[in-house]
């Protein structure tokens, strides 16, 4: 007897999913199955050889240094008090729009996203400030919380983005180009969210009672005074990449340093605050990379078992239309996104999808943006929606989980529309990188 290699591969995928379901940490499940699977497909010496080759070499990668740096930048910015001023000024700017506080949360998240590499960090930063204010103003709980959960997902789409760094390294796509590519889709998403909120509130004004519409000149000035550091950070980081002062990788470190300087201007810089941000960044780095190392081993298992080639053949037999294939991939991602975290999904599926994408000649920058968008949707879908959990955690007993998920569902629908637009019009993603790379 003896199993075909592809069968071993699929068996390994199934076992991995079962292990994840019984609450094995994702990184351990991936690493353990890879080790045993490679041993089974080749021999134990080779399995040990993969343990020699991957955990050290994978982590000791220059390009990955941007991940902890962008994390640190986001944590410092969140603690610097910049979010408060940001939220206030967006509130003033959007005062006449129905549901202005919700729309201001989206706009503030979009701007904060440019100082944060991660969605969860963006949600966390805004939730403590925006949600209580909306609840005080009598906003419906679902709307108040769902808005911040969904708006947080802009953190990964608007550069800088940790997910893009990891995607870029795994697929060999230019990280700088991905950063540029995410910009317009990110802004588009923010506009779509604000439009959706406005329409909903117009149709049902009870969702969001009208609050203060007029602001005094003094209030406007104060808001303006407190909001300037963020655009400065954005221009500093993205402008620096664009002007060639530093590479996208180096931008992480420069951005973290900028964030410290900004915190100092806000007089919110203290050793305690800085250290809290640094330690959080260290822990998050470790949590993320354990999954990534497991995934890097899983990539080898998949390669040896020939599953990716098999899947590519199978899908292409069904259809070789790239839009049909993208739809299939989207459905799979949204399904997995209900249960598994974004880095896990990306690293689990990319090795299987890469040969397929190559054969269909799908632009990897464009696909990167679609991937990020799909993963972001997963952050707000039940039952496992990390952004929703973050908001629940920061609010404690104020709101229950189902209300947040219900509020977020409107944003999921909006997200799917945006996704279809991104798939239908690749130019939206590819315009900026093509300008940059000529």
């Amino acid at each position, binding site marked *: 007897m003896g199993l075909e290699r592809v069968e071993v591969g699929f068996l390994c995928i199934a076992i991995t999913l079962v292990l994840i379901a019984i609450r094995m940490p994702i990184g351990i499940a991936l690493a353990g199955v890879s080790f045993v699977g*490679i041993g089974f497909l080749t021999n134990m010496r080779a399995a040990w*050889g*993969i343990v*020699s*080759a991957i955990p050290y070499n994978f982590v000791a990668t220059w390009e990955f240094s941007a991940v902890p740096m962008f994390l640190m930048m986001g944590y410092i910015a969140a603690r610097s008090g910049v979010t408060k001023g940001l939220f206030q000024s967006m509130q003033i700017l959007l005062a006449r729009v129905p549901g202005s506080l919700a729309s201001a949360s989206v706009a503030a998240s979009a701007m904060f996203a440019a100082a944060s590499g991660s969605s969860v960090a963006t949600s966390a930063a805004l939730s403590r400030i925006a949600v209580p204010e909306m609840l005080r103003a009598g906003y419906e709980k679902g709307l108040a919380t769902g808005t911040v959960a969904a708006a947080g997902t802009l953190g990964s789409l608007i550069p800088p983005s940790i997910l893009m760094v990891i995607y870029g390294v795994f697929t060999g796509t*230019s990280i700088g180009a991905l950063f540029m590519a995410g910009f317009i889709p990110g802004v588009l998403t923010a506009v779509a969210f604000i439009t959706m909120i406005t329409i909903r509130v117009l149709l049902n004004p009870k969702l969001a009672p009208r609050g203060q519409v007029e602001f005094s000149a003094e209030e406007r000035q104060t808001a303006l005074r407190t909001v300037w550091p963020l655009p400065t950070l954005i221009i500093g980081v993205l402008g620096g990449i664009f002007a*060639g002062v530093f590479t996208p990788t180096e931008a992480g470190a420069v951005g973290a340093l900028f964030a410290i300087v900004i915190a100092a201007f806000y007089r919110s810089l203290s050793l305690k605050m800085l250290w809290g941000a640094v330690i959080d960044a260290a822990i998050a780095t470790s949590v993320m990379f354990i999954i990534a190392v497991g995934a890097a081993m899983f990539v080898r298992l998949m390669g040896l078992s020939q599953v990716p080639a098999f899947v590519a053949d199978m899908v292409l037999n069904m259809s070789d239309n790239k839009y049909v294939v993208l739809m299939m991939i989207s459905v799979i991602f949204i399904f997995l996104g209900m249960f598994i975290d974004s880095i896990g999904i990306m690293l689990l599926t990319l090795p299987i999808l890469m040969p397929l994408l190559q054969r269909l000649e799908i632009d990897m920058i464009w696909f990167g943006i679609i991937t990020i968008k799909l993963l972001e949707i997963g952050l707000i879908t039940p039952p496992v929606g990390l952004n929703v959990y973050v908001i629940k955690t920061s609010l404690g007993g104020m709101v229950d989980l189902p209300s947040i998920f219900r509020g977020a569902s409107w944003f999921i629908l909006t997200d799917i529309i945006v996704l279809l637009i991104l798939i239908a019009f690749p130019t939206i993603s590819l315009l900026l990188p093509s300008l940059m*790379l000529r």
Partner: protein
Amino acid sequence: ENYSFSTWLEPNHPITLAAHVPWAKAVSERTGGAVNFEIYMAGALLPAKGTMQGVADGVAQGGFHTATYTPSELPLWNAIGDLSFKHPDPMVAAFAATEFGLMNPAGNSDWAKNDVIYLGSYSTPVYHFICREEVKTLADLRGKRVRMPGGAWARFGETIGTVSVNVPSSEIYTAFERGTVDCTASDVTHLTAGATLMGVTKSINTLTMGPFFAGATWIFNKDFWSELKPDQRKIIFEESARALARLQISYDELVQKNLDAAKAAGKAIIPPPADLQQSYDKFVADGIGGMADIGKRAGIQTFDKSVQELSSLMQKWEGLLAKANRKSEDELTQLLRREIYDKLDASKYGLN
């Protein structure tokens, strides 16, 4: 039977296209499928730094390995790579290095003591300065941020006053286009492949710097190698000779193609100014920037002897290739077989 071959090079790299892929196909055909290599490219199976160890461990049965990634494991090959500065002819370097690795005891044992079977090298084309601005004179180069591959290139850069910057290959393009880096010492195939620098390049200063040859186009796992039948090893020897000839011819063609394309695209092809050439010649005459000391510091007892031996192999191949048709795959294959591969005993090589 299916075996794995691991290379960290991309699918469209000249070594993948001209050597590994057709080589694996020919070996499979001639052994009737008994030795069928599936090639895992772009580091999909083993990362660049882990390839030699992975092959020794049997993660893959064969692999492509660059000595630079494991300087402590391959001290001799790392130190001796600088010798291409003295003999800057890629075909000479590739063939002499292959003879050195297969037939010279010291050259062979550097690989053997890492538990892998060496089966031949390669050489990139010669290195030039590819720049985002026009670099005409020695003075133009001074103070420029130049991406150097390390080793003799970096030391030469120091003597002419360039600033060595270390940029990973994934970032060269961006660094070049944004001006984080001014020049790179590279072979000209990078204009249209790999980093694809054509769009961000203004000039190529064709000072001929030594090519890079310190690697193995093929290394094999010991157990795998010993389980092959002698006639299968013989087939691998013969196909390796052919692949090596084909690779170097293809590299020569690619260089011409790239230079033509650069000219057509209006890039300035600048011959090296006299003062720059003099600096290079002086650097080589002075012992390639202390190459001997570096070898000794790496703890290689008989480094001088090895340098001397590889150098005379390079002279020998300069002579042989001067008389050969460097465009004929058959002729070069025969030459490589006669001088090297046919001299190996298929029932003994790599088996003790």
